[in-house]
């Protein structure tokens, strides 16, 4: 079998919630051995929130191992329980870090200080270490201790102000959006770049990813426009400055779409030919010549009327049929899909095998997000389902830290391996 790009590397994953663990999962998928350090004394909240697997009678499973939220971010990892509020726990943490290539944490600076996990402390025991920190606001600065999570970051970074319809308050985007791709993806990008540098020079380094900075960097032109021009952009719904129509239009309801029967298709027309094709497909070829809509400038000037008309025309279409008909004419169009679509009904997602199904002792066979980068020679692999809390405490203590069975028993009794 071909080796994976990160085979032979070990990651000390001292992170929790979304932004940290997802990054470490990517490293595991491409070959690294990832040791997730956890503790029942400071449980990762994602282990105890919905969605839970169901019991046979339809009730929710409980405990630390039944959450799909947690499991989807931690496939292929080992889990050790380590109480970092004890001095011995901190010492054992150091012994894992000493034998690791990469350290990853998204704890606040206050917690890093308490658990002695600052870069100066870690590089003293392992100078080749790449230590990556992804705190909310940074390791220093006047707001370094501000509290937050993805849903707090969404307004603070400007996403909320810039997203949604202008007649609504800035309600956000329905999720802890920055946690899932933007922050873990930037973190891993920096870690891989640092690995390349270490391969050439033998030197480790400190990588700092303040989640605030990471998200604002990826926020289009909003801040740059203010800095360069003094312009304050605001939210403009689903519209786009160089395309019209650019909208989600309503199609016929689909009662088989569970709990989510309203169906919509996103359409983007960047030129008159695309608009003309939309008119043809919808059986209103004459509209392409209507002076209110014939040119981009006219469509922009009459965009409310344009969208109202489109919604009238599409109301009886089945969403998938409309998408296919528009795509057949080369118009960018896509169903606003829900999870049922993505997992069960989208033939393309199925054909590409993006979702991976893994067996897990408590949830049973369950779906996991596969890697969204498909490497032809070294495809990533989710080797195992997410670990049970502390599933590998013995293994990590014996094989990596080098403790004897007696020592492990004592540490368990003392509440260190908890």
């Amino acid at each position, binding site marked *: 079998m071909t080796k994976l790009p990160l085979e032979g590397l070990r990651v000390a994953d001292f992170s929790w919630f979304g932004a940290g663990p997802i990054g470490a999962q990517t490293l595991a998928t491409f070959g690294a051995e990832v040791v997730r350090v956890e503790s029942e004394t400071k449980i990762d909240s994602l282990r105890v929130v919905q969605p839970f697997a169901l019991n046979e009678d339809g009730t929710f499973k409980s405990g630390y191992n039944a959450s799909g939220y947690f499991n989807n971010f931690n496939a292929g990892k080992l889990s050790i329980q380590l109480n970092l509020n004890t001095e011995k726990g901190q010492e054992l943490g150091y012994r894992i870090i000493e034998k690791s290539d990469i350290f990853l944490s998204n704890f606040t600076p206050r917690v890093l200080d308490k658990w002695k996990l600052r870069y100066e402390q870690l590089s003293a025991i392992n100078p080749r270490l790449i230590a990556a920190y992804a705190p909310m606001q940074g390791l220093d600065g006047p707001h370094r201790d501000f509290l937050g999570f993805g849903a707090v970051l969404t307004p603070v970074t400007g996403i909320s102000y810039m997203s949604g319809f202008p007649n609504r308050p800035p309600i*956000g985007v329905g999720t802890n959006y920055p946690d899932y791709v933007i922050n873990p*993806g930037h973190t891993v990008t920096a870690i891989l770049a640092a690995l390349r540098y270490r391969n050439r020079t033998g030197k480790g380094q400190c990588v700092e990813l303040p989640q605030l900075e990471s998200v604002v960097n990826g926020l*289009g032109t909003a801040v740059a426009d203010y800095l360069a*021009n003094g312009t304050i952009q605001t939210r403009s719904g689903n519209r786009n400055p160089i395309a019209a129509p650019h909208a989600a239009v309503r199609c016929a309801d689909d009662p088989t779409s569970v709990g989510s029967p309203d169906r919509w298709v996103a359409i983007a027309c960047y030129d008159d030919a695309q608009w003309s094709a939309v008119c043809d497909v919808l059986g209103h070829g004459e509209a392409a010549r209507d002076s209110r809509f014939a040119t981009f400038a006219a469509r922009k000037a009459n965009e409310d009327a344009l969208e109202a008309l489109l919604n009238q025309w599409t109301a009886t279409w089945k969403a998938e049929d409309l998408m296919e008909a528009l795509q057949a004419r080369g118009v960018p169009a*896509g169903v606003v899909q829900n999870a049922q679509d993505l997992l069960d009904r989208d033939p393309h997602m199925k054909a590409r095998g993006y979702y991976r199904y893994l067996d897990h002792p408590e949830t049973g066979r369950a779906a996991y997000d596969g890697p969204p980068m498909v490497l032809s020679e070294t495809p990533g692999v989710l080797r195992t389902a997410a670990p049970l809390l502390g599933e590998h405490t013995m293994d990590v203590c014996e094989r990596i830290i080098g403790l004897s069975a007696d020592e492990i028993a004592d540490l368990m009794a003392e509440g260190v391996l908890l």
Partner: protein
Amino acid sequence: MADRALDGLRVIEFTDELGSYCGRLLADLGAEVVKVEPPGGGRERRTPPFYRAVPPGPDTSLAFWVHNTSKKSVVLDLETGEGRAAARALALRGDVVLEDNPVGWMAARGLGFESLRAEKPSLVYTSITGFGQTGPHAGYAYSDIVGQAMGGVMTLAGEPADPPNMIYGNQANVSASIEAAQGTLLAVLYAEATGIGQLVDVSAQEALSMSQETAMQQWDLQKTNRIRQGERGSIPIPLPGAGVYATRDGHLVCFVLAPGGAPFSELVNWMREKGMAADLDDEPYREICDNLNMGFLTQLTREPQKAVTALPALMHINEVVAAFFASLTSNEAYVDGQKRLLLNGIVSTPRDLAENEQLRSRAWFKQLEFDYLNALIEFPGAPYRLSETPVAISRPPRLGEHTHDVLAALAERSVS
């Protein structure tokens, strides 16, 4: 000059708005990124807003600027044999080819993965498209909103009464670019260790899937769909300390009832200090304010009798809280609240971000010198800081700025 993490890595990119942010990430980390552009430039160069001090043109689009820093630009017409030959020679000089064209477009111009790899086995070839290189939708037309729709994030955003909401900032493009940056560097590490290159296939639809948060798992485990719930989320009534509040000059979002921060009573302490607690120290409000958290609310849902009396009180408390926040600026409410460990976030406007004291004190913004505009223009900084190999951002290239130099170097190389 300090070492750069990607020193010596040569990237030839054929990207427009979908993949250009990937090239930017690599370029800011030190790779030499040569962007091959069509005559006149691509769509991104024509996208507003433009830098306003001069007439708009391909060299003044901010949309282009923010995704193309630190690169070189070469104009080649790939519809001519000469242009294709030069592009091919250039691509073969690279360690990485990065492209975001429709499936088959590069191959039709002699620039496909198989054909380049036959000549250069170590080449890393990253293709970013809407739907990936394989599968029944591989040929589908793509734009950012289509990616957000098909990838499952739009259905989660917005008010139930409105159409689903797109997330601002071409987030499908940005997500695909970030996934591609990771995939490219993984392949680079592998190629540098083994001499074996490969194809990195990134689909924007897949790149967004993880951003469905729990919707995917909820369908998988429970066979129910998550839907967009708008301002109120899953809670049908306005609750004090939860949700969006209008301030004197904008908005604040509160999560005081969520675990992790100071309790609701701390918010009342603050209001009392400001003389804005009104009658919250009187019963029945006082008892509720002292105990208000998610557990208290869960209890209410189990005791309908108690809920009947508590609901009007909760609504009154919320009105008092709303009046308090309306008396503060957004920034006061955010900073003073956070200093009391109250979980809240300012709804930052672009100006709030430009003036954000955390970003300013960390010197995050970068002054870029635009010599051709005779201007220093401030820019958002990098997503990360690397202690040994700092990120360095230089201004984006003018269209074709490096055509002559790059082609001359190529010719010299082929002669020698």
